[in-house]
């Protein structure tokens, strides 16, 4: 299970994904801002948009918040591969935060990798304790990956 580091064939999908994600982000601007952790210093990237149309939990550790914000930034800078690398770093550090897995699911869905999107969304659901909005976001991804 591996893929070549090339998303050229998916550029059109990617552009569409970016446009739709931007629109979704604009619509949900009120709740999409990621609060910077209290102890974050100069290292925290200043992302203004989030991959997820659902606000992240406020209880996320600074390290996870930092990496997810960085991944958001990389994704919107069209550095999708780097965003995946960053999210994998976050998973290694704290694997049980569903927001990370949902971001991965979303990115893979946008890349047309429906099977991976399905698996990541399922895995995210397995870590959700109480976050009905994130669960319904995952469920939508699962449903669309099976269409």
């Amino acid at each position, binding site marked *: 299970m*591996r893929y070549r*580091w090339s998303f050229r064939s998916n550029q059109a999908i990617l552009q569409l994904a970016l446009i739709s994600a931007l629109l979704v982000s604009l619509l949900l601007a009120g709740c999409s801002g990621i609060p910077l952790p209290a102890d974050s*210093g100069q*290292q925290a990237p200043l992302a203004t948009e989030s991959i997820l149309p659902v606000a992240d939990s406020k209880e996320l550790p600074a390290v996870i918040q930092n990496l997810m914000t960085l991944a958001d930034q990389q994704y919107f800078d069209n550095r999708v*591969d780097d965003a995946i690398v960053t999210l994998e770093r976050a998973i290694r550090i704290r694997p049980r935060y569903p927001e990370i897995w949902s971001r991965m699911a979303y990115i893979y869905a946008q890349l047309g990798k429906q099977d991976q999107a399905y*698996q990541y969304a399922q895995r995210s659901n397995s870590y959700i304790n109480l976050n009905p909005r994130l669960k319904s976001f995952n469920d939508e991804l699962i449903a669309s990956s099976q269409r």
Partner: protein
Amino acid sequence: MTDKHSPDKKTSRRKPSKPGKAGKHVTKSSSRQDSPGVLRRLFLNKISASVLLLVFLLSSLYVVYLDILITEKMSGRIWSFPSTVYARPLELYKNKAISIEDISSELDLLDYRKVNTRPAKPGQYRVYAGAYIELISRDFNFSDGFQASQGLRIKLQNNYISRLEALNSNQVVDVFRLDPMVVAGIYPKQQEVRQLIQLEQVPDDLVLALLSVEDRRFYQHWGLDPRSIARAFMANLMAGKTVQGGSTLTQQLVKNIFLSADRTLIRKINEAIMALLLEFHYDKSTILETYINEVYLGQHGATQIHGFQLASQFYFSRDLNRLSRDQMALLVGMVKGPSWYHPRRHPERALERRNQVLALMLEKQVINQSQYNLYAARPLGLTHKPKLSSNRYPALVDLVKRQLQEDYNETDLKTAGLNIFTSIDPIIQEKAEKSVSEVLPRLERSQTQTAPLQASVIVASSEQGEIQALVSDRSPKFAGFNRSLDAVRQIGSLIKPAIYLSALQYPERYTLASMLKDVPLHLKTSKGDVWSPQNYDGETLGEITLFEALRDSRNIPSVRLGLDIGLAEIADTLHNLGVRRDIPTYPSMTLGAFSLSPLDVANMYQTFAARGYHIPLRVIREVLDKDNQPLTRYPLAFSKTLDEKSVHLVNHVLHEVTRSGTAASLQRILPLRVAGKTGTTDDLRDSWFAGFSDEQLAVVWIGRDDNSSTQLTGASGALQLWGDLMGRLPINDLSLTPPAGIEQAWIELKSGASTNKNCPSAVKLPFITGSVPTEKAKCDTGGLFDQIKQFFN
């Protein structure tokens, strides 16, 4: 070539021909008179010319041959780069579980220099006040971007990072990656270790010292230096023996790469021709760079130390560009005779030679007098233990190579300069090696066998299936038979969780409270024999719950359950768990009478550790080309192959195994919540333990290469090693959070019926929603002990 005594020659001298008719006449007349002589002369001339032509042709062919030899070998040398295998970068962040010793150990492995004052340069660190580490990281090009060197202060409390901040500004840093350790190089030749360095990275002082000593006119000559040759010739003549060489660096390079060390005339001629050819083909920088990477600088066992960069690592444990001038002088001085001036074997001789080089550096004004005085007074400054990072973890690197060979050919691996980033965790690897080295001798103390025990240990991250450590030999640095991958042994009771998982996927038929028969069983085999499986203790208990049967690893109930579920179904479950080998479907397979490698077992138990998500174990994260451009990524890929709820039920029992089952002795060495299963095979040939925490999965096998008895069970052997290793890792209690669709109920073990917590022998067990037994137990409160227990409950 003409014969001076021939009459023809005399005649021609007596009658010198003049231009004009007379001459013509004389020539004609002479020709007529001496026609046999002329013919003979012509004939001889022709032979001479032919011989000359032949010699010329042969010489030309030989030069062409040498030329081809040079260009082929040199292009191979210059353009082939070994691949580099990197460990995972250590991530630093607040609340990371890590001790001050582990960070120091990582920095030592990374060859950071420990200093006593505040670090001032990249690659330095200090530990102070028992709770702080200050360091300045090195620049590193990660696949997702360049990370510049940064000063950091790490505060540790109770083996956790309590604060991570920038060294200068004291501002909090959320997360930081250290540069990853180089684990190994994959080289064109096995015994020739080399760490290539580009000329621009070589310190100028080293180049100046080298040229001062070995070839002062390197930039003036074209491969040969007649002045040096003449000077050496005179010196040798005066001394009556060979005291000085006149070889240029180019000649030395030719000798190192293409020729033997013989001092014959033919070799010298070859060397001279090839040196000229080399200079004709390549510029001075290329020749110098190749020389610096090629020069032989000592031996370490069977390994030859080639090149200044590796020699720097070998003798001083640091990169070439971090050497002081006296250290450079020592290496330069060794070129003359690496064995004669070997600084570890002949320190006095090496010191004298180093100071000779320093004197030459002074003469050439590379250093001034006060610097000379300073450097010449210094000791050699060698590290005590030679460190060769050529292949620090041979079994792990073997796994890396095998996984790479699925996508890259052998030649590319050895010559394309790939940068291979892996999940290898040096801290865990070092601990695994230490556990093997310490526990095996302990286990052998009470043994009568003389054949040594062998072991395999595999550690992977529970949730991501990344292999972090792998040991395949009791001497972990020994690059021999890779038992973790190739020792295929019977797995014994490690099979049992797969049988119970197969059953628990049918909650309407089986729950943890289901009663199983533990009474003698006799099965007729296809050969007509009768197979009667026995419990390990030789007893039968009548009826026990499924929970107890797995917890206590009872053989007879497990065989009965396996036969009831179906052997093919168990094989399917094993495949869903990640086992890729063919599984036999005969009854004794229910007791693990088939063989798997430790890596197969790790793949199988990974799926339990990841709660039903099968993640094929991997060690490579990504491969970059020599210019750091990404080539292949191996992303985290997984699939949900088993029902999460059934897996949770099995995991619950696997935790009980370590608390009150066959691995209960673990509590003495590892007082933490973990889950796992012991495995023992016939005649105690194999001792297994596979288990996991939230953070790590580890599989341990102990056995002997001749397949004789280990005299150890899974609990008395592999479990001890497993517990020792996990006790060294910063793990937490296993969380065992139930997934949705699980409910808890109190069960009376003797009947498997529902009861309440106040009842004796009541245990709380998880059930898939809707499968809690409806039968109620009659609470037995007859005994005084039970009444007291009930009162306190």
